[in-house]
């Protein structure tokens, strides 16, 4: 069973593999608990999009980055932020709208930023961050920095025109950026076949720009890592952008308010049976890198980290009402009222 998932030889050592497993657990737990705070305590508001089921995409791809590389994604951003090193505390505080949140309570779930750690945001207008990613890569190239940008987008996002403007320029100028399409088969309630004239998304996004297009099982964290590494090395070598279509599946509705009635219980169950976290546990168990006790201990640790994050978030201050006018501009802000 595990062998079904693992298409490639391990490209990681034990330490790294355990770390990746732990990261996936951390995202899962972070969102499970956040969902409870949203549903029960009414402590979180606005749009809230969960990453459950898709964790290996972020974990495997970010796993091959160097310290100073950059990451940018859409609104389904908790996972990417945590993996980039954002402490669960500041993530949770952001969800609760607190001043200690990563974006001081001004961004919310869709706008997790941790610029110091290279997390250049969650972005909520579909497709709008694809040009930004090309801009980061443009700057890296301009300054002669050996820095790569990973940019995540959805299967629905490829239908925004600006995406194609950016892909063309990124290819034309050989910018060091890797676009990872998280193809979870749905854009809200719209199945891929109803949104894209062609289902192979590398034909939509790589072929027309003459750049490499990879298709990979996004739920295989090591395959994800391997493919990303190839694309990242391509970029570092000055060969320009690549597109990776990562097949994956989201367990939850599009956002917390979506009952996801557009798909069958059977379909969901089918996917949940192949849960990537459990599969990776099995793989690592098979390799003898991990046993049940270790898994238990890891889970406990993760749980504790998240409970601590919640406590921190709950104990944190609300932003002051005056801060409404802060962070609008770098220059002293003069409200035009």
């Amino acid at each position, binding site marked *: 069973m595990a062998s079904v998932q693992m298409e490639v030889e391990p490209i990681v050592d034990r330490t790294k593999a355990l770390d990746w497993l732990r990261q996936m657990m951390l995202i899962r737990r972070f969102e499970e608990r956040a969902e409870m705070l949203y549903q029960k305590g009414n402590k979180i508001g606005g749009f809230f999009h969960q990453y459950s089921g898709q964790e290996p995409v972020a974990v495997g791809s970010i796993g091959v980055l160097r310290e100073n590389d950059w990451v940018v994604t859409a609104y389904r951003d908790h996972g990417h932020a945590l993996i980039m090193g954002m402490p669960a505390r500041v993530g949770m505080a952001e969800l609760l709208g607190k001043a200690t949140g990563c974006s001081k309570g001004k961004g919310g779930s869709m706008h997790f930023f941790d610029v110091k750690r290279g997390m250049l945001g969650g972005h909520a207008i579909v497709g709008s961050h694809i040009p930004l990613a090309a801009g980061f890569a443009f700057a890296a190239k301009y300054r002669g920095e050996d820095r790569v940008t990973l940019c995540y987008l959805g299967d629905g996002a490829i239908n925004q025109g600006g995406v194609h403007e950016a892909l063309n320029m990124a290819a034309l100028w050989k910018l060091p950026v890797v676009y990872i399409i998280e193809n979870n088969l749905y*854009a*809200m309630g719209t199945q891929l076949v109803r949104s894209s004239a062609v289902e192979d998304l590398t034909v939509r996004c790589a072929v027309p720009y003459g750049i490499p297009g990879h298709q990979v099982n996004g739920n295989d964290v090591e395959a994800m890592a391997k493919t990303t590494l190839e694309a990242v090395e391509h970029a570092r070598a000055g060969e320009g952008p690549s597109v990776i279509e990562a097949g994956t599946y989201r367990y939850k509705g599009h956002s917390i308010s979506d009952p996801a009635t557009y798909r069958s219980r059977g379909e969901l169950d089918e996917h949940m049976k192949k849960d990537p976290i459990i599969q990776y546990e099995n793989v690592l168990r098979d390799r003898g890198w991990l046993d049940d006790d270790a898994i238990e201990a890891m889970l406990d640790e993760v749980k504790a980290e998240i409970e601590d994050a919640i406590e921190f978030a709950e104990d944190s201050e609300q*932003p002051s009402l005056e801060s*409404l006018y802060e962070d609008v501009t770098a220059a002293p802000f003069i*409200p035009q009222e």
Partner: protein
Amino acid sequence: MAVLSFREALNQAMTEEMERDDRVFLMGEEVAEYDGAYKVSQGMLKRFGPRRVVDTPISEEGFAGIGIGAAMVGLRPIVEFMTFSFSLVAFDQIVNNSANMRYMSGGQFDMPIVFRGSSGMAGQLGATHSHRPEAWYAQVPGLTVLTAATPADAKGLLKSAIRSDDPVVFLEHEVLYPQKGEVPDGEHLVPIGKADVKRPGEDVTLITYSRPLKETLAAAEELAAQGIDAEVIDLRSIRPLDMETLTRSVVKTHRAVIVEENWPYCGLGAGVADRIYRAVFDELDAPILRVASSDAPIPYNKRMESSMLPSVPRILAAVDQVTYR
């Protein structure tokens, strides 16, 4: 009269017009199989089928343009933006193509298209998802801009919009969708270009539209208790503006406050105030004050967001100022 929610009233308007006229169709993201992101089009796919209730990819510029093209050759599209914040990527199509085309062709065709969807601050959606585009679109000759604050107006205005041969920007408010109200039975049309006096009064004119009507009426009640008789005008038609109703009121009350969710600088209230001043300056005993949103991007934090919104205390404070109390 039936009691309907705002969302049901919109649904009825579309359904009735689609029953009447095969040229009318609805297009947008998740309008069909999903029954609408906010369920405004609930049941319409079932009733009209996929030919007339059309799910689109996430391509606002593209499907706005497709709608405009279809209107140029005689269909009467209703294009739903999941929210009007997403109309920003279709801004060029709306401003340049829908508004200008008739003119640039010397009047060779009509442009019977309605762009509709929710707008405004719906609660913790953040800066990108909380736009109030009324002043942007109001500025553009060729466009009609409408907004409703009650289910009855929602139905009657949307029906008029669909029957209009000109491009209409029809702004709804997510927070209003579940709110209920009486809607006249039978054919109910609200004319374009007419404001509605939602509460007559003698002492001060309160001008508003969309969601803040509720706060404005509540403030008027408070004022009544304090002996001040406020007239509350719901603009409904943002462009064209019903100057007659506005000036008639101000000539009577000599003072006005505009209550809106728009940003203050160059917001809709500025556009309305400027026109009132130029029309009846001598009648005004005080400057026209504005209870608008604060001049900042919209934050996620709930308290901060609420603090930006028009509220009864803010309206009362403004009225105190214009009545020099």
